[in-house]
Each structure stands twice: as C-alpha cells, then as structure tokens.
C-alpha cells in the first residue's frame, strides 16, 4: 500500500518555495519535515498563535489554585504563628508564585504534546528508507496519497521539478 511521497530538498529556501507551489496547486494533505525550526514557515503553513494564551490561562488557574490552597487551609485550621495576621497575604506570595509556575509548566507541556498529536506510535513518513536525512541536514515534504490532488506520476514529476529527490513510501 502506498502511504505517500517523500521529497528531499537541500535547503530551507527550496522547501518554502516547494510548499508555496504545492499549496497553490491545491495540495492539502502534506507535511514539512525539517531538522530545525525553519523561519518563515508560518507564512506557508498556518502558524499557531495559541500558546501564549493557553499559558496565560494556565497562569491564572495556577494563581487561583495557590491562593485557594493557602486561604482554605489557613481558615480550616487557624493557627496563630508569631502574632501574624491570619490571612497575611505577603507570606502567601512564594507558594502562589511556585504553584503558578508549576501549573503553567506542566500544563503547557501536556498541551504541546496534545497539539502536536504526540505521543505517536507510528508515522508513515518515518517508514521512508532515507527518512533520517530530514533529521540531519535536509528538508522534507511528505505528500499523503490520500490528498485529493494526489496522482503518483504527476505529483512525483512536480516535486522533481521543484528540485527534490523523491521516494515512494510504501508499507513493508
């Protein structure tokens, strides 16, 4: 069974150019695979601006959790420590701060995995024989065979025209 085509480009500029052309031709089910973050990729593939907002939300949650924990436990077991006020808020700052950071850190890490669809047991592009190249020094585009515009011969020709080495990725 054919999973798709893996195209290897030798520079990030060629990759961006190829992605632009493929998008123009109406290809939708494709992935860019790169060894490093590529600048300018957001202009071609849609970027993701949610992360700062999610982190902010988690931060608010963390502040709430931290304050709730301390205020609730103090009221539940009132204890006069050195004559300090029962709800002496300056003393609550360190714990609130740490819990805020802890909530954001753990939360955003889990969100990152969720947004990226990880952990993933198997990915068709990894089945490519030369796959390791895109983790090293080359830039890959994986075009899924399920793409509506996919046609083995013409897609392969297009990718070659864009300057890629092309490999068919099949099961087995």
């Amino acid at each position: 069974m054919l999973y798709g085509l893996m195209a290897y480009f030798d520079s990030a500029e060629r990759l961006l150019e190829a992605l632009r052309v493929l998008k123009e031709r109406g290809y939708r089910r494709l992935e860019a695979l790169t060894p490093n973050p590529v600048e300018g990729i957001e202009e071609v593939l849609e970027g993701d601006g949610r992360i700062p907002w999610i982190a902010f939300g988690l931060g608010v949650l963390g502040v709430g959790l931290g304050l709730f924990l301390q205020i609730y436990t103090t009221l539940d077991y009132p204890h006069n420590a050195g004559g300090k006020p029962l709800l002496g808020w300056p003393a609550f700052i360190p714990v609130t701060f740490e819990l805020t950071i802890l909530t954001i850190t753990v939360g955003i890490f889990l969100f990152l995995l969720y947004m990226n669809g990880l952990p993933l047991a198997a990915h068709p592009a990894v089945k490519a024989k030369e796959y390791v190249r895109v983790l090293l020094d080359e830039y890959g585009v994986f075009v899924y065979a399920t793409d509506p515009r996919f046609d083995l011969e013409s897609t392969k020709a297009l990718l070659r025209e864009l300057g890629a080495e092309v490999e068919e990725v099949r099961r087995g």
Partner: protein
Amino acid sequence: MAHKEPHPDHDLIQGEWTEKTLVEKLLEPVEKPAPRPWKVVLAVGGALTLAWLYSLFVTFVKGLGTWGINQPVAWGFDIVHFVWWIGIGHAGTLISAILVLMRQNWRDSLNRVTEAMTLFAVLAAATYPLIHMGRPQLFYWVMPYPTHMALWPQYKSPLSWDVLAIMTYLTISTLFLYLGLIPDLALLRERSKGWRRRLYGWLSLGWTGNAVHWQRYRAVYVLLAGLATPVVISVHSVVSMDFAYGLVPGWHLTVFPPFFASGAIYSGFAMALTLIIPLRKWYRLEGVITERHLDWMAKVTLASGLGVAYIYLLEIFIAWYAGEPAEWAQQLWRMTGPYAPYYWAMMLINVVLLQTLWFPRFRKNLSWLFIFSILANVGMWLERFVIVVISLSHDFVPGNFHLYYPTWVDWTLFLGTIGFFLFGLSLFIRIFPPIAVAEMVHLFHRLRKH
C-alpha cells in the same frame, strides 16, 4: 553573490565541518565506545554511590544519633550540603534559560550537560531535607492533604515554601531538559538498533520533525525558559529565607536572598567548568566548546563571585554598624574563634583568588581555570559551613555555645552524593548526547550558511 561579513559568532564552531560530520562528532559519546576516563569516573561514582546507600541505611536503621548534630547545631552537614547542591544546580538552568532569552549563541554547546548537572545536583540536594526529617517515610506530612487530624501545612513558614520551590524547580528543570532532548532522541532512534532503538523510540514520543510542531515547540521552549528564570532566583531566595526568617545571629539579614542567589550562580558556573574542561578534553570537543566559551563562563563566575565577595564585606559592616551585640560577637567569633581557619580559607578563595579571573592570562589558562573551579566549589562549601554551622554554634547565650563534630556517617553521606552526581552524569552522557545536537546543527546552519 555580494560579499558578506562573517557572522559575529562565527568562531563559536571551529574547524571544518558539514552537518553530517558535526552530528557524528556530537553523537560520539553515545555511539562510540567510551574512553578510559569515563570508565574510571563511572566506577568511582558507583563505588561512592554504594557507600552513600550504606550510610543512608545506617541513618534510617539507627537514627539521626549517628550524625554529629547537637544542640544548638541542629542543622549540620546535611543542610550545608543541601544548600551547596541546590546552588550548584543553578548554573544549568541559568545557562539554558536566561541565555536563551538573551539569544546568546554560546549557550548551545553547554546547555545540555549543564542541565543534566542541574538535574542530578537537585536530586542530590533533595535527599538531604528528606533524610534530615529522621523519619523519611513520613515525608508526605509536608504535603497538603486532608488528614484525620485536620492538620494542614503552615504556609506562613519558609520551610513549607521550600518544599514547593524545590518541587517546582525539579519539575521545571526536568521538563526543560526533556523537551530539549526530544529532537535528538528522534535522531538517535533512527540511527540505533536493538534496545537503544526501543528506548529512544519510546522517549522521543514519535517526534518526526514536522515544521508546524517545531514552531510550537520553539514557542513552548522559550516560554519555559522565561518561567525557569524567575524560578531559579526564587528557589535560592526561598532557601535563604529558611535562614533569614530565624533570629540566629549571622542569619537574620535581609540581604540573604541576593547573597544566596549570587553564590549559587558562582558555585554553579564553577561546577560547570569543573565538568566541562575534562569532558572537552576527553571527547576532543575543542571545536564546539571553544576557548571563547570557557572564557565567558569564567567571566560569569567572576561577576557572580564579586557579588558574593561584596556581601561578605557587607556582612561585616552591617554587624558592626547595627551595633547588635550578639551579631557583632558572631562576626568576631567567625574571624577569631575555633572555626577561624574555615572562615579565612573561604575569604582567601572567594575574595582573593577570585580576583585572578580579571586577567585574560589566568582565564585562558585552562589548568588554572580547572583548579580554580574546584577551589571555588570548596570556597562555596566553606561559605555554607560558615553560615550554617558557625552561626548556630554561637547564639545568644554563652552557656549554649557548642561546637559541631561531623561523624563518618556525615562524611559518607556527603562523598556519597558526589559519587551519585558523577555516576548519574556519566551514565547520562553515555545514553543521551551531552551537547544538544539539533541546536548545534541549527547554530552551524545559521553561522555558516546565512
């Protein structure tokens, strides 16, 4: 093509490389047979770890009576070492986090090994409060959980802030280290066979290098760096408040948080130098950990060390100027009492010898830098000893004065954590690349191709 000025950081990677040869080089510690010094370090570390386990066993079975702690020195070696280890951990997070935010390219060669250093240093540190409780199986009493006694932790106490600060620090530095490892794990997965392939496969979580994933990944990485930065400062500040909240002469100072934080950075960078200089030599990493890297690390050591030296002098001034008899007596006792050699050795290293780092001649002399980095750690150990033991042994009432004599269990616990630290780190660099491969290749790409 028009003439281009070379990138200002061009010489951060020296020698002729391509991406492929650079990756081969950086993966050598993991993929090639280990050099002989690595085996020696592993064996020594392993032996000391066993001794550590034995002394822990003795502590748990016979109790804290096997330690040298007494009244009033109830905080003996274990708290000295707790603070010492936590401080050492700080350089790792600092190099990785603050330098990310400042876009300092030279961090890329250093961040992985120093983050691993942080992880093992914080683990070593965390064992001390745990065993100091005497009944470590009841450690969960510090957690907020509903008990049948309707008791909650006291959140106005710095000791309970400490629990949360250390746990947060351990969590964030572990996640940061792991996040940075994921792309390298994917590369190793594709390059290895057998159990290693399975291990890296599991740990890399199926990372493929998808460009959109990379974009989110960078966003989260920088965000975590931004969050780790204040945590580093807060952790050591909270540790210092464990002291500063008390009334003991020598502890009761508002300057403690910046004092502890700069000491932590100083000892952390010193420990990083102690580890990186031999690592660079044994694995022939001169091309990627250049003299420029070491020079900058020495400069940071100098800057943070000067902060420490300044506060030593300030402490003397404040004790005199405040005119509090117990405080001033404590200061004189440090300088002239039975512990005076420790105090003056600390002053010699952290104030006098430190000044050599002003001179490029000394900074560029790797033998001196290596020796000094070890001395700086000894100096910081002495500082923790001065703060914990000397302050406690001489409080308000002369009838209360009591010296502290560590036992063999105290010493074995200390040497044991050093062994555990070395053992853990040497295993780490055998399984995970000690230099962040993906980041170095990215840096190489930026320096040479743009």
